[in-house]
């Protein structure tokens, strides 16, 4: 009987400690892998509004839609600019090649032609925003791209979060990033981007709204602020769909030119 009570007691203790033990087992790598897994999809469609906010509070809006599909580990993406009028109907097609490089074409409606171009420079500004092209692809690194170190826990915006420092192994404009990861959703709540050896981050990404839709966590609104000029850019996901059937005809130069999958 005594043995039984001892076993029960140990079991209760283990059960009580299990979350802590599991949490303690999390590493920087495992956390960031879950971040990537949370956002992974075989296909995605997003309707996005970018709001550029200057230091005086003046705003400019851009609207884009993007479709992505991943087949055999290679991702194709098409992006359409819907506004402002100066770039409306400009379309980008990016195809990932098996050698890791991207093929990229652009359709310029003013010229009515499709042109092959060099892949966008990773650290160039995306549409004049505070996001670089690389930021638009992802603001976090997978485990192959960076060394991730779990720095500790914190409460951010009433959410329990891990703090992970990432030092990229790939070419990046940032020497390190620090990411607050929501323990429940594994979405980034805040990312600080450091350039050179500066003590303060050059840019800060803040998640403003998340949503749980059909069991899937989504980031709905984020803002990137550049410290040097206090300029910021808000990205709002107006619509998002994941793992939906998608016509492969979207990811062709013919679609770029005509806007039709034919």
């Amino acid at each position: 009987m005594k043995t039984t009570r001892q076993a029960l007691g140990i079991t209760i203790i283990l059960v009580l400690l299990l979350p802590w033990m599991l949490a303690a087992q999390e590493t920087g790598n495992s956390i960031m892998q879950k971040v990537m897994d949370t956002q992974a999809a075989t296909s995605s469609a997003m309707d996005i509004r970018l709001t550029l906010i200057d230091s005086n509070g003046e705003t400019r809006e851009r609207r884009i839609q993007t479709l992505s599909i991943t087949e055999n580990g290679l991702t194709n993406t098409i992006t359409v600019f819907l506004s402002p009028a100066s770039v409306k109907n400009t379309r980008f097609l990016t195809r990932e090649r098996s050698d890791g490089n991207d093929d990229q074409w652009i359709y310029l409606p003013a010229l009515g032609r499709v042109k092959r171009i060099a892949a966008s420079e990773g650290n160039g500004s995306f549409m004049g925003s505070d996001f670089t092209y690389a930021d638009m692809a992802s603001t976090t690194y997978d485990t192959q791209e960076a060394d991730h170190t779990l720095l500790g826990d914190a409460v951010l915006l009433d959410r329990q979060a891990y703090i992970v420092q990432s030092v990229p192994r790939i070419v990046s404009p940032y020497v390190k990033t620090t990411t607050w990861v929501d323990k429940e959703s594994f979405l980034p709540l805040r990312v600080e981007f450091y350039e050179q050896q500066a003590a303060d981050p050059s840019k800060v990404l803040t998640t403003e709204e998340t949503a749980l839709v059909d069991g899937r966590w989504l980031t709905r609104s984020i803002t990137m602020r550049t410290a040097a000029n206090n300029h910021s850019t808000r990205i709002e996901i107006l619509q998002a769909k994941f793992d939906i059937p998608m016509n492969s005809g979207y990811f062709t130069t013919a679609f770029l030119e005509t806007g039709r999958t034919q």
Partner: protein
Amino acid sequence: MKGINTPGQALDERGFASLPPQRARYFTLRSLHSLGRATSKLIPFPSLRLEMKGIVSILVVLLLASLPLSAFDGFTDIFGPTDEVAVTGTSQETPFDPSLGINGSVGFSIEGMRALDNTREIETAIGGGLEIDLAWKGSIVDAQAKLALKPTIDTPLQWIDIFKGLSITSYFNGGRLEAGLLKKEWGAGDGVHVVDVLNAPDYRNGIVDDSLAMKVAEPMVLTTANWNNTALEVVYKPLLVPMLVAEDPAHRWSMLTEGQATLFSTATVNQTTSAELSRFANGQYGGRLVGTFGPADLGLIYYNGFYTMPAYDVRAYYSSGGAIDIGFTRAQLFATEATVVTGVFTFMFEGGFWLSEDASATEPETYNSKWVYLGAVGIRIPGTGAYASITCHGQYILGFDETNPIDVDTMQANQSSDGKAYMNTLTAAVDIPLARERVTVRLAGTYQIETKGYALLPSVMYSISDDLVLKVAGRLFGAVGDAPDSLFKTWAANDSLAVGITYLF
């Protein structure tokens, strides 16, 4: 400036013909160096306008008949009409919903230039107006109309200036069929080409920083088939549309030298009529096959058409004082194009052989065969968002006879390449976005090596808001040092500065 002695036209008391009616079209004898195309002399061109008018009317009827249609407005078959995060894991494709798309701009500009009479006064030209792009999209049919209403003080509007494009496109499985007034671009280069043959150039306003504006929309039927990463275009053009230049020999953008103007004012010129230009035998056709192979896009081109510059038979004029006959030289183009991307660099190539109907180069009134070539490299400048490119292009005329001054090739070379069989031109351009794309600085320049002629087109655009753009642009022409005659040298007095504001919608 003397007028043109058009057949049947009355002469004035001095024995000269009066200037032709306003808005008649002419082709001039001056060659164009930088763009690899030559032109010839003055030909009134009103009848082709009537031809265009008829075609336009037919297309308008067809366009209206194809309603209802719509324009591309995002992935409407995937996204719903309301802005809300949709459920995941399911496809909520919405049914096709035809609609009408309208885009365009309205603007005003003023361009100042020195007066041509050396009075140091400034002449101003008022520009701007309204441009509208109408687009309808149906389930299998698109229709597009690109209209421009840009009246100027001294010239009335013409059909050819109003309809920048008017077409209907029908889609079928794996391809499409387009018909109408179209502007198309063939070739890999950055705005400069040697194999871009489907539209005649328009130099009535000199050279501007808008390559599409310098093309004449031409009637054509074009079908495109797509499979895998390959596209095949086949085109037919029923009319011979020659290039357009400034209509008035005294116009500042005229390509005529004074000597040429004198020559053609004293000679009887047998014009090429609209009926001749639109004869069935003048139909042109071609094809372009383009495919993607790893980091390269490669293309093959065949085109059976004409050199767009008129050719002048001046033999009778010089031997017996007879008339100058105007003709056009039929030629076939066998060409290739390639774009290769590596890192931040984009390499572009075009090369081709024009096989003239005068393959033996024995007829002075027709242009000879020639090689054309282009090499260019573009680079995205790291850390700046800027893009720069440099292009070298040129031609080499076969069977060139510099000892025969009445051969059209020699006449062209004397005007465009200092009398040489070869002609090479450098073109450079840089586009720099600043202040989060509120400001764009552009500089384009071209230098014709044989004649030392140059053109510079700098501009700065400032976005007051996303739909309101202020633009300041300049045009500078001239030649370096003691240079031979050239187009840019002729235009040296046409340096200008323009300020304009445009509202986009």
